[in-house]
């Protein structure tokens, strides 16, 4: 048994025995995880993932992982049809994107481990409480919540991790500082579901198996059993999902033989506000550019949300970008003033020419008048 496994096993024991509960049975029949906890390595690279995505075709039965009482049955913005089951110990199993609920699965009712509680889908909802509609490929987004932040950390970190340095928040993906998300009403503090399941589930995407583990429990041991240098300690300020993603990034960087600063792209590391339309500014007039920026900055909800989440560096990047835009506009205004002044100069010149012509004619008239007078 290596050192990593030596303190990982007690950790797993904490997750089960210390809470005086049985481990959870499978919540889907397919038993395949399509998205890891903590980090997304596929099309949503850089985003944290606060649970498991289980493979679940449309209409596939979803089961209670453990006995409990239904605490939430609602539609949530983005999450679609949601069901939460509170275990007797206060921990919560949460199911997102369901296409339908099983009969008699109502808030306040008891469910038993293995009981069908609903059916898989890919639902979302425009706003919380509004009807859900299909928006994603069918799957089960499964979240496990614990009632206390300390408990979340206890089940996620080895005792040795406290000796390690804190993770530099400036080097983490954009959501790492968003600690307000740690606790969600009705869920508690989200944590890695892996130690709470009886089984380990393989990952659909095998590309990270060699680095982050070939199944859910192995990933848990790798990411939390031996926190990498620079990883998040158990008393850190970060939520488990974010720490998991950060620690996974560190492990990936180690494997790539690069310091984390080089391994992470700027967007990964510091967050970024939405950039201007690529290549569009070359074809925009200053007025169009101003209108574009005004819409992006003052009418976009996404912009307003992102503004509070990105790091100071991202804000400086945007400030620098806007200084560039301001310089561009100043130059455009300067050139426009130059054109106006040139046109004024031409106008003045034309007016002067007209005045000169009138003066010349007046002089000629005067000369002719003098000549006539002298003859007379």
């Amino acid at each position, binding site marked *: 048994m290596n050192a990593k496994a030596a303190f990982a096993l007690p950790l797993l024991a904490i997750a089960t025995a210390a809470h005086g509960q049985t481990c959870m049975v499978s919540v889907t029949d397919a038993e395949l995880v*399509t*998205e890891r906890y903590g980090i997304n390595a*596929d*099309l*949503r690279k850089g*985003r944290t993932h606060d649970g498991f*995505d289980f*493979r679940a*075709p*449309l*209409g596939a039965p979803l089961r209670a992982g453990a006995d409990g009482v239904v605490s939430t049955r609602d539609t949530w913005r*983005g*999450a679609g049809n949601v069901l939460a089951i509170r275990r007797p110990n206060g921990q919560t199993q949460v199911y*997102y*994107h369901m*296409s339908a609920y099983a009969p008699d699965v109502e808030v306040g009712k008891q469910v038993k481990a293995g009981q069908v509680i609903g059916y898989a889908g*890919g639902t*979302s909802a*425009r706003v919380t409480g*509004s*009807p859900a*509609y*299909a*928006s*994603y*490929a*069918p*799957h089960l*987004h499964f979240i496990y919540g614990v009632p206390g932040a300390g408990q979340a950390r206890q089940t996620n970190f080895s005792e040795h991790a406290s000796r390690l340095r804190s993770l530099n928040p400036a080097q983490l993906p954009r959501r790492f500082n968003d600690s307000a998300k740690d606790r969600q009403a009705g869920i508690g503090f989200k944590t890695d579901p892996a130690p709470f399941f009886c089984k380990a589930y393989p990952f*659909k*995407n095998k590309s990270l198996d060699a680095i982050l583990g070939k199944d859910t429990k192995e990933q848990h041991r790798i990411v939390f059993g031996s926190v990498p240098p620079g990883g998040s300690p158990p008393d850190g300020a970060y939520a488990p999902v974010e720490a998991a993603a950060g620690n996974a990034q560190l492990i990936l960087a180690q494997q790539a033989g690069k310091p984390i600063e080089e391994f992470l792209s700027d967007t990964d590391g510091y967050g970024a506000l939405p950039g201007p339309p690529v290549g569009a500014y070359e074809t925009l007039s200053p007025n169009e550019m101003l209108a574009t920026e005004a819409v992006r900055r003052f009418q976009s909800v996404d912009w307003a949300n992102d503004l509070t989440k990105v790091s100071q560096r991202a804000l400086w990047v945007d400030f620098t970008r806007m200084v560039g835009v301001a310089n561009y506009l100043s130059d455009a205004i300067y050139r426009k003033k130059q054109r106006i002044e040139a046109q004024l100069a031409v106008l003045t010149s034309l007016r002067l020419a007209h005045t000169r012509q009138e003066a010349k004619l007046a002089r000629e008239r005067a000369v002719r008048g003098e000549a006539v007078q002298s003859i007379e």
Partner: protein
Amino acid sequence: MKIIPPLLLAVLIAPAASMAAEPASLTEVLECGMPADKALAFLNRESIPVDGSNVKLAEVTAYGVPVKRIAISKNDKFLQANFAMNRTGHGKLVAAAGLKAWDDEFGAGFRRSLLNGKNELNVTHPDDPNAEDNEVLGFCIMSFRGAL
């Protein structure tokens, strides 16, 4: 899984010149340019189920891309047409339908608002790990009352 017989399919995809105001084909429903009530009337007339059950198709296209199967459902607010196609048709569909990329907490894909916001066409990302291998899904949501 229901199979639509070839004769009925011919009816579904044939242009109905005499009924210009009505949906002329299932293609028009899937392309998401139809108001919900008209699309529902068409589906009812053609006995296409709207209970969410899968219907396997042949020779039906959406934006020129062959559709493998559909599942249509409704509630009092939406009529929703889900359809599946081969991954190879994804680029063609996105370009032909003028879809824009999106990426949120739970997934990524391409979408477009139609009929002044009453309808929305949404297609999964070709690399979505939750879709069946070599398959992309399309979702046309049609609102019965006002914008989505």
